[in-house]
Every structure is written in C-alpha cells, then in structure tokens.
C-alpha cells in the first residue's frame, strides 16, 4: 500500500513538464493535452521535489 497521495490540480497546470522530468520515481506522465498526470502514484516516496518545483502550485503530496 502506497504511503503517499499525489493530488494534482490540472486547472493550474501549464504543461512545463518539470514534475515529469524531476520526479525520481516517474510518478508523473503527460495526458493527451500535454498536462501532467499522475501515472504511478504508488511509486511516490514523498520527497516533495515535484511540489517544490512546480511553478504553478498544481501539486500537493499528502501522507496517507
């Protein structure tokens, strides 16, 4: 069972892909429009790299 929940507010996402590239566990992918989407939620280790580097405040990582 994954320890973390990755919440994504797509309305704020501008498709910069920083989260996709920086996540060490490949949690994020891209949807058809190019916006971020959570593809491997279970891999999340709660390092917060995505949250702190998202320029648009789309991501929140929560401990379950």
């Amino acid at each position, binding site marked *: 069972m994954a320890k973390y929940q990755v919440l994504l507010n797509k309305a704020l996402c*501008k498709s*910069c892909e*920083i989260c996709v590239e920086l996540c060490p566990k490949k949690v994020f992918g891209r949807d058809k429009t190019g916006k971020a989407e959570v593809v491997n939620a279970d891999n999340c280790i709660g390092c917060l790299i995505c949250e*702190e580097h*998202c320029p*648009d405040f789309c991501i929140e990582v929560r401990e379950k």
Partner: protein
Amino acid sequence: MREVYQKIFRDNLPHIWCAGCGNGIVMSAFARAYDKLGLDKDKTVGVSGIGCSSRITGYLDLNTLHTAHGRALPFATGVKMTRPEFAVFVFMGDGDCAAIGGNHFIHACRRNMDMTAIIINNYIYGMTGGQFSPLTPFGSKASTAPYGSVDRNFDICSLAIGAGATFVARGDVYHTKQLEKLIIEAHEHKGFSVIEVLSTCPISYGRRNKMPKPMDLMNYIKDVTIAKERADKMTAEEIAGKIVTGVLHQSAAVEYNEAYMAMVEKLEVGKNG
C-alpha cells in the same frame, strides 16, 4: 494546495507567468520560508518593482506595494523608516534592480536598512520580450542582442558586497530547500540582506540560447551552480565557470534606523541634561 501556501496567497491563481517560469518556484520557497519565520502578515510589507517577477506582490496576502520600474527600494526605504518594526521584503528582477534601479540598489546596500531584497535573476527582460539586462551573461543572445551580447554583465552579489550590504547570498530555483533556508537567514540577519536567485525564463531567454524547454534551464542551473561549502575546498581552476551559491558574505554594521534613533536619543539626553 498545501496549507502553507494557502495561508499567504491571495487566492487569485493562476498567476500570469509562462510555463516553466521560475518566478512561481521562488514564490513557493518564499511562502514556506515566510511560514517558518512566523511573521505577522499585518506587519509585513512586500514591495516590488516592474517586470514579470515584480508581479509576485499581487499574489501575496501582505501589505503590498507594486511600485515603478527600478524604484522598489526607495519605496521600501520610506516604509521601513516610518515603521521600523515592520518586516520588509523587496522583490526585483535583474533589469529592474541592476539597470534602472542600480543606483537605488547600491545606496540601499550602503545604508544597511533592515530589509531583505530578493533579486530574481532570469538573465533577461521577460515582460518586454527578451532584451538583455546587466545580468545577461556576455555573449548570450537576446532580442536586442541577436548576435550575442557584447555588454559585460555584473556579478550582482559582488556588487552588493562592494556597496556594503551586510548579508549577501545566492540561491537558485533548482535547489529549493537551500533557497528557502537562505530567505529565512536573510530575514533573520539584522541589516540589508540581498539574495540573488538564479531563475528560469524558457520563453525569452531559453529559446534564444539553445535551452528551449523549462527543464533545459533547470539542468543548466543544476550543473552550473556549486555550493559555497564545496567551492571553498576547490582550486580556482576547479571552480572556473561555476556559479557559487549559499551565503557569500555576512558582516555586522550599524543598521540605519538604529543609527537614527541613537542620534535622537543623544539629542534628548542633551536636552534634559
């Protein structure tokens, strides 16, 4: 959005910045640092100039002054002198601070008034579409330097140290934890503190300089920076071409408002005695 952000934002996102712009990352680090500092929002003033990064004050739920191009520091000086107990944070861009505001900047460094200046350096004038600034590296391309800039650039941190700033640090938008820590240390320093933040402008800088994607600039910043603790142990050859981050300078000097109040007290003693 995490509570730490909700607490200090005005609830008017999305912001105006482009995809991959570092301004949001700086605002995020500032919000976390601000939360840890535990300051009173009513007694905090955010001041900014003009440019992309200066729009940051519009999103922060503080007393905020979005001033004129280059003029953030004089406004902040008036605020701080009137209410020395206020926490004052000044946000400026590279062109804003180092070109049109350059004179104000060196004099603010010299005066040593207790406030924190955060210079968001994305190497370019973003708002006007990518002209070179005094911090654009020599040789880089810009809309007004289509063949590469022949204008030598400032090292704004060295300039700040030379002008007398008592706390000078450099952070960047890749090393977010370090940036958060630097903002806290800068505020806690008594006197004029300066943080240069290396940031990203994929649209106006990156695309002209073979780094078109947001991650290209992120990787550039990751590769070019080196923490001061490591740099101190390296030879000049080893750190050639690197940009040192961390607290670059800290010294003690009399703070302006304290000097002013000491003068006032002296006059009162003279009057009564």
